[in-house]
């Protein structure tokens, strides 16, 4: 998935790095210092629908068949995450205990058209 450039109107991944210092949360989040908050943005013209998209599945196959047999597209196709990964966090809870946990699906790695 391309990362978003100003001239890229198509579906892409927009990268943002969030430093916990910016949130004023460095006092209770010990590690990491920040994380990638990416999200998907851009247009999905009909010929990109379902490629590769998280809907690249049975639904997408059926959707393509319908599309092929219907001259007009059904509904709109959106730019959505197709791959995510977890974020490992080390933080202090209210009692001052150190907690280490993996938060699933926190970082968007790839985008596609549904």
């Amino acid at each position: 998935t391309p990362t978003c450039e100003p001239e890229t109107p198509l579906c892409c991944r927009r990268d943002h790095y969030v430093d916990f210092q910016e949130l004023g949360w460095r006092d209770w989040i010990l590690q990491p210092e920040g994380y990638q908050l990416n999200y998907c943005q851009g247009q999905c013209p009909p010929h990109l629908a379902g490629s590769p998209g998280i809907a690249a599945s049975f639904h997408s196959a059926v959707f393509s068949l319908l599309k092929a047999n219907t001259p007009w597209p059904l509904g709109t196709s959106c730019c959505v995450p197709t791959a995510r990964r977890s974020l490992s966090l080390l933080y202090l809870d209210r009692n001052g205990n150190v907690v280490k946990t993996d938060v699933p699906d926190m970082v968007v790695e790839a985008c596609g058209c549904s």
Partner: protein
Amino acid sequence: QGTGAGCPSCGSPMVATQVERALVLELAKQQILEGLHLTSRPQIIQRPPRAALSRALRRLQPASVSPASGEEVVSFATAVPVTGPSAAACSSMLTFHLATPRAHHLYRARLWLHVGPALPGPLYLRIVRWSSGRRRQGSRTPLAEHHIDTPGWHALALPSSGLRGKASGVLKLQLTCRPLHRNSTSLPPLQRLLGTAGDQRPFLELKIRAKEPREGRAKRR
């Protein structure tokens, strides 16, 4: 909301950079709190000393990743000597404040103690769980017995089943020690044997995993 019509992923017009940055920071807060099942950022009542924190973090194996949707917790103890007519000379009470457990399953617990150089010889250490009950002295549940014969850090395994329960999240462990060999010299108070402050503060290392749905019910085979 407020960014104009439509959603950014379906081709709406770009937002101004400042507005987008503010949105991203707000989204990050929501995402982190939701991921940690918190409604707001924790207001830390008592921050552990930096030295204790760094030592404990070294115990959390960087390579050991907690199981999916699981946690590893390090909880620092406050230690007070046990007094009273029936209290053994070598006895101490450790108090931990654990988060009230969500639907999690504690499957491993270790108590880390630092024994100082004043250890006169091998000692026998008994750990019981103390809970306030109807009786004035409270009730004691034996948890573990260990032999300690060298100074330094010791990781003492505790039965995770003995630590579950108590919605209050307050866990009290009473430690009692005596010489391992009956004819050896008597022991100084446990407070002088055990590190209780700074980077020698005792702490619990807990490994928790999310409960499977409907866990706890007997599985028919």
